[in-house]
């Protein structure tokens, strides 16, 4: 009970900070807004609005890599948020590298688009709802006197079962994605991607701040990264911020 009260109070101050930070942002004091948003994050609390607003403040300060990082964090919490997606696209126009993404197969694209309709939590709630409806349909099928109702119960039951299974899979995927840091934003102004995890290896290509890489594996302070066009190489881990 005492713990709960404490959390409640902490949350309250965090809410106040959030409002102060928003006020600072509206006044144009972006740096102090960032400090306040960071304070909220430091309390181990997070939300899409906090990351989104912090990204905006960084964008206004022209710190595009940090802005992109914040938007990506927000998008990870809620892949469906249209505002975040729009601002991330705008911030990505401000960075140096323009990487043509590798074309994805039709099914992968459909799958990912569908998954990004809802956030992980909403997919979980969706699965709960689908489960409830599935039970109703089963009930209809089992207990209805009329043959029509039974048929309805049967077919809708199959539909709800599919929805349930799909939303469970989506929720599971988003949950596991949120638990691992498998992507990163380059923070150093220029980095050279190497062919193997040591300084003396061959230079493969150059990346600039703000570019997103996928983390594949880690070895001795180096990360194996893949960029959107599919190129793979090694980068020092301290030149990027994983999320």
């Amino acid at each position, binding site marked *: 009970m005492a713990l709960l009260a404490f959390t409640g109070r902490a949350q309250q101050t965090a809410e106040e900070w959030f409002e102060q930070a928003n006020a600072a942002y509206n006044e144009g004091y972006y740096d102090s807004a960032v400090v306040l948003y960071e304070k909220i994050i430091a309390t181990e609390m*997070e939300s899409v609005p906090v990351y989104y607003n912090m990204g905006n403040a960084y964008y206004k300060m022209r710190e595009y890599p940090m802005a992109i990082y914040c938007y990506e964090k927000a998008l990870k919490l809620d892949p469906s948020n249209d505002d975040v997606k729009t601002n991330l696209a705008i911030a990505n126009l401000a960075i140096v590298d323009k990487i043509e993404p590798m074309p994805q197969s039709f099914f992968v694209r459909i799958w990912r688009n569908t998954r990004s309709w809802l956030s992980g939590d909403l997919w979980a709630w969706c699965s*709960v709802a689908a489960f409830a409806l599935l039970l109703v349909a089963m009930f209809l099928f089992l207990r209805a006197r009329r043959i029509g109702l039974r048929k309805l119960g049967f077919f809708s039951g199959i539909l709800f079962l599919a929805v349930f299974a799909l939303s469970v899979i989506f929720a599971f995927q988003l949950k596991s994605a949120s638990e691992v840091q498998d992507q990163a934003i380059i923070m150093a102004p220029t980095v050279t991607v190497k062919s193997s995890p040591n300084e003396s290896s061959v230079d493969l290509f150059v990346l600039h701040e703000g570019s997103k890489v996928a983390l594949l594996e880690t070895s001795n302070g180096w990360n194996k990264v893949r960029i959107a066009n599919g190129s793979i190489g090694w980068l020092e881990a301290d030149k990027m911020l994983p999320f």
Partner: protein
Amino acid sequence: MKKILSLLLVIACAVPLALRAQDNPTLTVSSKQQVVVGERFQVVFEANVEGRNFTAPSFEGFTVVGGPFTSSSSSIQMINGSVMRTIRITYTYALQAYQEGTFHIGAATLTVKGDKISSQPFDIKVLPDQGNPYGGTTGNSTGGSSNTSGNWSGGGGTQSQRNNTDPDVSGNDLFLKVFPSKRSAYLGEQVVLTYKLYTRVPVSSLSISKAPAFAGFWTKDVSDNNGGALRQSSEYINGIEYTVAEIQKVVIVPQRVGQCTVDPMSIECVAQVRTNRGSRRSNDPFEAFFNDPFFNPGIMNVQKELSSQSFLLEVKPLPTAGKPDSFAGAVGNYNFTSDIDMTELSTNEAFTLTLTVSGSGNVELLQMPVPVFPPDFEVYDPKITLNTNVTAQGLSGTKKAEYLVIPRRAGNFTIAPVAFSYFDPATGSYNTLNSEAYNLSVKKGLNSDPDGGIYAPNQEGIQYLGSDVRHIMSGDARLKPMNTVFFGSALYYLILLCLLVLFIIMLFVLKKREQMAKDTAANRNRKADKVARGRLKRAAQYLKGRDQDNFYVEMSQALWGYIADKLGIERSKLSMDTVSETMREKQVPDELTQQFVDTLNSCEFARFAPGSAEEKMDDLYQRGIDVISKAEKVL
């Protein structure tokens, strides 16, 4: 012989006289004590005896541009019988100072009959070169060249004498000077150069042979040509009267920072010189012919080329401190006004916004500020009118930009003020002036369509004026602790489990209730036969007693009750139709159903139509027992 003797006598007399004159041999020097860097001047050593081995001092700190020019003159005077012979020998050097400071000129020596005489050493102070007229000669050197009747025709200046036949037109008689209005200017600040011709001799024709290139400057010739005649005035320099003619006036505007050299200007002219008869000897017979005093007594035309001196102009950069955003390079002193011809108008009616910049400065290069109109306004390219005039300070004028604007939509609009910034070199600071803000009220025009037809608004795509990130989210922060995912949490499973349990419970409860209902139905079914038999027994008693009414009542109740119990139909819903339908549902053979319904029908019929035969009652009784026993087998 006598002649020879008298000549000897004269010589004999002259020698002692000459000796007398040599009593006090001196070597004097005359020069300017103060000169300016770049100035040319003369140092004249004058001896009153003849001597040998004249050695000049080293003119350290100066350049010897001419000399030594030697000239000598002697005169013999006889006053009251005493004969005076005066000898004057001058050694003239032309020097030019090239660095400032004080320089010592040592003694010059001359050997006179084995003795050395020397001049007085002296100092010359060289002053820095500041603002004094440039060019031509600083030909006011001591003694004046008119006194030096030597063969030196210098005088200075960078002038060159193309026609070397004339010793009389010197740099002091005719020279060109340039007067800059200032020696150092800011980038973009205008400087007025005035070229003046100084002359003491009549000049007949004048043409610019080499105009300066003015590299690094924007230039504009602002000479006032009043009918080709040059403006003349007279000016005294060191007591000598000169006629001064303003040849050209140029405004230059420096376009780059640093030390900029302004090139000299060269002019060609013909000077008319009064010749001294006989003093000149020309080898050219033609020239001698045309310049013969017979044709032009005492006047000779000499073609001369003059050029001004080049000088350095220091161009300072504009200060970066306090430079306003709206600054677009205007330097000078300006006034900025705006005007609008109407503020209340109808759609598709044009109004004019006029921006006017006036003042002194380089109005021609001025960039007019651009007003920002509301997006729905149709703005035409501005009509720019320029009006310049020249003053002693340089260019000034008015630049006007007229914007013709047509509002296409009705509403209230504001035209924001426009800022115009300029740099004032006098104060060394930036000034910003703002135009007025105008509030326009645009009414919907009555005759929106010029053709008078139905006004069809032209549809337009949306104009995007800019792009930015979307604004921050306000309101609830919707904070939650990190790494709390609803999926897979205990709550999630709990909810699923609850749903499942609820489902199972509901199924179970429903089943139970059905069971119970089934149980009551089964009871009734079981007892139906018994009850019916009881009723039939009583009916049989009424049959014996011939009590028609009661018989039918019992009979009807026995049949209805039986079938209701047997089929599980509630009494309230009991009817002929429900009975036949339920029986069909329970797959009772049609003939039995028909039989049962018939029996029921005849029973009801007999009940409400009494007075029928007794055998009918018996028959009905038999049929009742028959259908019930048949039904008992099926149901």
